[in-house]
């Protein structure tokens, strides 16, 4: 948490105080995981002094070094490429404003990751709320007496590494196909690893609403994967 002093300051600059609180908490868990990979980015340290001095060339280096990875993160939240690129730009603007207070005790990449997630959420929140998109066709159907119309079959194990990789690619593209309201909850809970309360605060929902949306999102994802995962069985 102490490492997050700088990011905390940065995120204060953005509207939505609840968001920073949320993200600061996650950062603590994620930082731990990422610390092992410290070596790949230690040249960021050299950049930092120049960045803080307001060196534009250094900022360009920062953008070129991190934009691709951060754009991938933004694309998880937005199906539309323009939206993802907008969120990325907002994130770098926020980072630029907040650099002076960045203390360098968190990794720049971790700090930027938080900021881009934050700018995606701000962008999602600022939109006029659209009516809940229809997820119905992706949910299991039941007969009058309560049994499934198409009873669930067991899934196979993915023992083969190649197949596991292919399935992961499939999972990513299916998540992309989920309506935004469900996708966002799934990304925050299952991928960004916020807990229910943090997700509820970030999205302005009740905790139960988060749980139900997450359930629907997982159900839909399960349904999309079902043909693939039962396919290998006779």
């Amino acid at each position: 948490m102490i490492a997050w002093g700088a990011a905390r300051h940065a995120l204060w600059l953005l509207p939505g105080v609840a968001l920073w609180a949320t993200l600061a908490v996650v950062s603590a868990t994620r930082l731990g995981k990422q610390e092992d990979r410290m070596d790949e980015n230690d040249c960021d340290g050299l950049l930092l002094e120049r960045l803080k001095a307001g060196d534009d060339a250094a900022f360009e280096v920062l953008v070129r070094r991190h934009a691709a990875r951060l754009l991938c993160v933004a694309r998880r939240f937005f199906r539309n490429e323009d939206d993802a690129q907008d969120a990325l730009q907002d994130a770098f603007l926020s980072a630029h404003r907040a650099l002076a207070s960045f203390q360098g005790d968190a990794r720049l990449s971790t700090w930027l990751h938080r900021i881009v997630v934050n700018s995606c959420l701000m962008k999602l929140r600022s939109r006029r709320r659209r009516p809940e998109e229809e997820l119905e066709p992706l949910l299991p159907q039941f007969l009058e007496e309560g049994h499934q119309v198409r009873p669930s079959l067991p899934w196979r194990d993915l023992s083969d590494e190649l197949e596991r990789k292919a399935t992961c690619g499939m999972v990513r593209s299916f998540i992309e196909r989920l309506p935004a309201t469900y996708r966002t909850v799934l990304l925050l809970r299952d991928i960004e690893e916020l807990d229910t309360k943090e997700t509820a605060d970030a999205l302005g929902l009740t905790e139960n609403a988060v749980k139900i949306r997450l359930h629907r999102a997982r159900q839909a994802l399960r349904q999309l994967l079902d043909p693939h995962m039962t396919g290998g069985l006779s």
Partner: protein
Amino acid sequence: MIRNLTCGEFVEFLWRYIEGDAEGDEAREFERHLAACPTCVSYVNGYRQTMKLGKMAFENLEAPVPEEVPEGVVRGILAAIRKG
């Protein structure tokens, strides 16, 4: 008093069981249904596997980035920064 859940109820309220919100009799209703219904066993196992696959799908993505960012995007960002 433990009720018999239908498969529809089981699947609809499964999140309460998965999240640990269902306690006592409510949890036992889920367990009793599972003990008697192979279809819902398949459903839950697939559901849990879905959760795992969701995590796995994004796990090793942070190291190498497959794609370049379009030059226009980089320039757009830098221009926006200069404007302040």
